[in-house]
């Protein structure tokens, strides 16, 4: 068994894939072996390794969206997570310019590589969110963008040539909650509710270095309670398999209890306790970003990159995208039955949507049958 914590960053992507595969395989293998008298070598125990090899060759992609008011430390956190500087030439707007600002969508795509594993990382930025004086429906450009990516994938998937489909769907949205208030604000609730059925929403408490440990706990409890009360469906970590080792289960349990994660980011390296670490230098002390007693940055990084990246992609594909697709098809077929001249732009099997003419025929036949039955009964009785 391999421990996740021994490997850096996204090297574990192919591993997490092969891990689930190897678990199921080893179970069926042991069953087979217990049944047979002799241990005969077949060789498919190498499958996980083959998966590993192929996935390394193919490379991975991941799209991460960050959203929240400006000044919450989103860019700094992204830089800290991926140990790079994506925002070198950024221009920040003045307060006056932001009064009527609309939300923009900006994509940064980078190709990064670690120990032979290639990752195409796309960060979707949402500058202007929550910055204007009137923020009614400020999430609309964001939901439109997510839907557009779904639509694009839907078309590509239904096309004739599916060789090189690009997956631009948003796999995860980190939402930054300000730590200065008492809990969620109306704009936070509205945003998360607008997005929770389209993308995996992971709420974070931003700039956590302004909260003492007690205050962090209070705020986390408050936010968790409000998320439940308002019916916001944030990303849920999958349950551990029962035959995972204790350490993994413990880590998983701790992670779940820590949500929402309170994070701090930093672009600068400081000297602390004889080491050079990413941190923030204050007159009263040094905040170390990777110190687990200072903030949950490490947990976020582990969760996002080392253990749950693939699960985030799976949930996006299996749940959010499928919901979108089903809804799309339903809308389309209901339009088709209304207007028979319209051809389906994509090859789909028509859903069995009830249609008036057929219903009527069915009813008619039903009645006929009933009549015969009754008559039959009468004759029988008679």
């Amino acid at each position, binding site marked *: 068994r391999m421990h996740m914590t021994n490997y850096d960053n996204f090297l574990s992507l192919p591993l997490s894939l092969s891990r689930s595969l190897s678990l199921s395989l080893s179970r069926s293998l042991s069953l087979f072996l217990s049944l047979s008298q002799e241990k005969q070598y077949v060789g498919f125990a190498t499958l996980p390794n083959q998966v590993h090899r192929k996935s390394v060759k193919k490379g991975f992609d991941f799209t991460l969206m960050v959203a929240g008011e400006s000044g919450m430390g989103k860019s700094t956190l992204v830089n800290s997570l991926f140990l790079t500087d994506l925002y070198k030439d950024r221009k920040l707007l003045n*307060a006056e310019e932001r009064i009527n600002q609309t939300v923009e969508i900006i994509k940064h795509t980078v190709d990064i590589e670690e120990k032979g594993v290639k990752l195409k990382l796309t960060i979707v930025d949402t500058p202007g969110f929550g*910055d204007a*004086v*009137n923020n009614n429906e400020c999430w609309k450009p964001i939901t439109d963008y997510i839907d557009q990516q779904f639509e694009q994938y839907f078309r590509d998937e239904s096309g004739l040539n599916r060789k090189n489909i690009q997956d631009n769907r948003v796999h995860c949205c980190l939402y930054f909650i300000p730590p200065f208030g008492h809990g969620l604000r*109306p704009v936070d609730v509205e945003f998360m509710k607008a997005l929770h059925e389209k993308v995996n929403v992971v709420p974070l408490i931003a700039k956590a*270095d302004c909260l003492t440990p007690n205050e962090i706990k209070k705020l986390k409890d408050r936010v968790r309670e409000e998320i439940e009360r308002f019916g916001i469906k944030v990303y849920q970590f999958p349950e551990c398999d029962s035959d995972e080792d204790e350490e993994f289960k413990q880590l998983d349990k701790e992670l779940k209890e820590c949500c929402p994660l309170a994070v701090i980011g930093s672009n600068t390296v400081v000297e602390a306790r004889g080491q050079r670490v990413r941190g923030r230098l*204050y007159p009263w002390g*040094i905040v170390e970003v990777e110190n687990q007693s200072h903030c949950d940055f490490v947990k976020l990084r582990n969760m996002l990159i080392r253990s749950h990246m693939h699960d985030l992609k799976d949930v996006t594909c299996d749940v959010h995208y499928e919901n979108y697709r089903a809804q799309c098809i339903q809308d389309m077929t209901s339009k088709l039955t209304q207007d028979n001249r319209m051809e389906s732009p994509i090859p789909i099997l028509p859903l069995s949507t009830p249609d008036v003419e057929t219903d009527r025929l069915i009813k008619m036949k039903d009645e006929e049958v009933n009549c015969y039955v009754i008559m039959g009964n009468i004759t029988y009785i008679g």
Partner: protein
Amino acid sequence: MSSSDVARQLGAHPLSLSGHVGFDSLPDQLVNKSTCQGFCFNILCIGETGIGKSTLMDTLFNTNFENCESSHFEPQVKLRAQTYDLQESNVKLRLTVVNTVGFGDQMNKQDSYQPVVDYIDRQYETYLQEELKIKRSLHNYHDSRLHACLYFISPSGHSLKSLDLLTMKKLDSKVNIIPVIAKADTISKSELHKFKLKIMSELVSNGVQIYQFPLDDETVAKVNTTMNGHLPFAVVGSTEEMMVGNKMVKARQYPWGVVQVENESHCDFVKLREMLICVNMEDLREQTHTRHYELYRRCKLEEIGFRDTDPESKPVSLQQTYEAKRTEFLGELQRREEEMRQLFVQRVKEKEAELKDAERGLQGRFEQLKRLHAEERGALEEKRRVLEEEQSSFSKRRAAAQLLQAQNLNANGKKDKDRKNSGFM
């Protein structure tokens, strides 16, 4: 000969004293009087929910004002005022703290500044009303005008928020604004310097006038100048105490260190307390009265129609203006009355004419009907005459016929008689 000429003639030239007179105690007399009366100070705190307004007030005045946490889901911005009586040495202070509730929480914040502006104006209005009263008691009046406005800026580290700019622009001509950076223990030193510069430049470029510590008094000019350069103050508030060294200090304990509120290298809390309370409190009150209140008063009176000079640019006293206004008003009344009367008369005339017309019409119809009637009667008479004639001629003919018949009968009788008679022969 105007009064200024008299003054010049007499001349106010300096005179040297040959001994100690004793009027150098005047400031002390003033101080004693004010101390007996007690002082009054009103602070307005504007800031987002949870930004630390109540905690900072508690820390500044070293007490617990017992504020409850507000919710983020207020539909509108409200203001909550609480008055406290504090005492330090033998000086009594009546402090009113006004906090915004729900500021910055709504989705649409276009009108968020309005309740604040209305509140400030209301305090000026009540003072103005008191001033204009006939029987007034200004020395007993509890002055509720806001002397200082602490605007809490969220520590984003980038710049002001759009709401901050909008609100401060609306308030800078109404109240002394002192911007502070709240929860400053989340900003590192280098970031803080850049942040302060950015905020000040944004305020300047948008023409927002914040309160500047006064430089006219030499005793405090130097320290005020330095302090003006540190604006906006980056503050941290805390009512919890911790042992640091061998003293109990107000502090916030983090896993990576302890932020001491009163440590000048940690934050500007001490500077704020110095400036706001120790050095410039009286100046804040004075500025409120002489600048902001006077502006309000002038605008309000101009709205009603009072002027200092008439159209020929000669100075006009309030009395004259009042008289003029009164005559104008009465004249207006009279004019209106006259108008109404005219209108009434006209209406009456119109109605009369209408009625006359109607009458004439009726009369005409009456005549017509009469004529018709007479004609018909004439016709009837004619017919009756004809009938009577017919009747009479008919009766005549009947009579004649009867006579004839009778004659015939008689003649036949005679004949018969004759025959009878002749028959016998």
